[in-house]
């Protein structure tokens, strides 16, 4: 009888390698899709942003952003609008998510469908719907005046107000979803324990519920904020030409300069700024985990 030192070792090792490969293969299509639809075009735009009209390497597009104050204002307005939208979404969405999280699961699921309902209509349709509702002789102003609630038409649209209304409406579900699921995950016993130890419902909320729902709130706020940075249609339709966010400015520059480079440089700057914010936020979230938010 022959004794083999490590019987089947080679074959077993090969089996393991094949299994690993199969696992990678499953992720392959998604990776390919990301490369084709994201990395290639973004990289190409990045490249274009460093070329001038003659096709030579140049920082002209970036210099223009520094020299002309309107670019700086477009960036600060973009962040301002995104910040305000996020803040309003938190104020409106957090209490709603709280109510939903306290409902029995069946009722909550039905309400969640209602929250998701806007996703079934196109963004453009919803935005124009707001225009119909909000304009000078729109439904809201007509009825408000008819009912004697106010006298002159309120400036509800073609300005920052209208833009925020439209954007909050679109972004609210993006905030509610993660907040709701993080609230659902909070064990009711924590609140009972807080009450038992002497915390009134208000104090139990501030000291226990809010901190425990914070990771979800942070995630939701971040999603909303980042998505807001790229908004184009809503400010274009509801902003009355006064809310020029970066995406709108990109469109203007393409028309004006017939040049993708001029526009993509704006995209690159927005991309980098967004990346920085994400990085800062991820630090913040990790800090939160350090404080014990992730344990269960």
């Amino acid at each position, binding site marked *: 009888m022959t004794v083999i030192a490590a019987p089947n070792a080679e074959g077993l090792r090969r089996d393991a390698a094949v299994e690993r490969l199969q696992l990678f293969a499953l992720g392959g299509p998604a990776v390919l899709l990301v490369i084709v639809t994201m990395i290639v075009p973004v990289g190409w735009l990045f490249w274009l942003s460093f070329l001038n*009209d003659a*096709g030579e390497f140049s920082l002209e597009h970036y210099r*223009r952003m520094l020299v*002309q*104050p*309107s670019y700086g*204002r*477009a960036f600060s*307005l973009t962040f301002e609008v995104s910040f305000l939208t996020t803040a309003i979404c938190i104020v409106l969405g957090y209490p709603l998510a709280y109510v939903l999280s306290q409902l029995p699961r069946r009722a909550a699921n039905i309400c969640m469908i209602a929250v998701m309902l806007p996703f079934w209509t196109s963004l453009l349709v919803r935005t124009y719907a707001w225009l119909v509702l909000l*304009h*000078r*002789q*729109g439904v809201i102003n007509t009825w408000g005046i008819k009912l004697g609630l106010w006298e002159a038409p309120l*400036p509800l649209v*073609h300005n920052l107000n209208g833009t925020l209304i439209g954007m909050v409406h679109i972004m609210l579900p993006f905030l509610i979803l993660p907040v709701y699921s993080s609230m659902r995950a909070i064990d009711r016993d924590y609140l009972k324990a807080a009450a038992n130890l002497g915390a009134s419902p208000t104090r139990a909320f501030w000291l226990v519920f809010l901190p425990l729902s914070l990771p979800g709130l942070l995630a939701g706020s971040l999603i909303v904020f980042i998505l807001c940075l790229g908004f184009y249609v809503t400010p*274009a339709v509801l902003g*009355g*030409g*006064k809310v*020029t966010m970066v995406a709108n*400015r990109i469109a*203007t520059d*393409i*028309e*004006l*300069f*017939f*040049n*993708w480079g001029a526009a993509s440089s704006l995209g690159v700057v927005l991309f980098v700024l967004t990346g920085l914010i994400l990085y800062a936020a991820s630090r913040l979230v990790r800090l939160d985990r350090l404080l014990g938010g992730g344990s269960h």
Partner: protein
Amino acid sequence: MNNNKKSGSRIAAILLGGLALSFGAINASAQQTLTVVSFGGSYQEGQSKALFQPAAKALGITLKEETYTGIADLRLKAKAGAVTWDIVASGSGSAARAGAEGILDKLDYKVIDTKDFLPNLAGDYCVGGDVFSTVLAWNTKTFGDNGPKSWADFWDVKKFPGKRSYRKGVAGALEPALMADGVPADKVYEVLSAPGGIERAIKKVKELKPHVAVWWSSGAQHAQLMKDGEVDMITGWNGRFDVVAKDGAKVAYTFNQALLDYDCFAVPKGAPNKDLAMKFLAEISKPQYQAEFTKYITYGPTNKKAYDLGTIDAAYAKKLPSHPDNAKNQLTINLEWYIKFEAQAAAAYENMLSE
């Protein structure tokens, strides 16, 4: 310059293009194929029916129609060295700048006959296809019969109180401001070209800024604003107002001090069938085609002989921007000025808007 007015549903045009493509494939061996690109929507539909198809038939060639969003698309093709279009439809200003940039071929006016054209509607790189006006329009419900008559009135918020809407882009935005500031029409571009001229115009627009409720950026938008009664006074393209007025909008406009502008056709550098393109442009510049096109939209013919054919109804003719009675009160857009100053003016205008 007014690219946006033709943007809209491109699907019809794409389908048309696809149709043309399949015909082209069948007949390619027998006939020459010409590729024309325009802005799609109802505008291209009109062009197709009044200009492209009849002209192709007359020349015995196969026509392929495509749509695009503007000169930036052509620029990309030109850079890639893959120009597939023979003729591009464009705003006059965009075409002029593209010509200066070197991505268009000079037109051969030995082939294209423009001796009967209205003045200034054919340039080195671009031959006019239709004429439109940027006019002063107002809500007839707000102002009744005593509407504003001039740009000075547009700026006069005491005499004509009400919400204004003005263009978000700089094109066609500075000329009215200077006229409102007392500059005679024939001196407008002189002033704008002189140092401080652009600043003077922008300062005048800034004066009106508190009263501007909406800065419009597309033809569809300024038409809708008047239809909704959202503003009381506005600038915009005459054809759009006619369309919504037909729909019952309370809107009227004047050609007085309006800005006369035109859309045109150009041949890209590197076009596959350059000579045929010239012949095609010569064909669609003939008065009978020009007269036919007015049936689809109230944009005027560039060839003034079109008025003499008798195919345009006399009353209707008086509504067209290029009708001699209307044209004489207007300021024709100066393309040389735009080539030289638009980028600079646009930057200053954006700054004023964003302040």
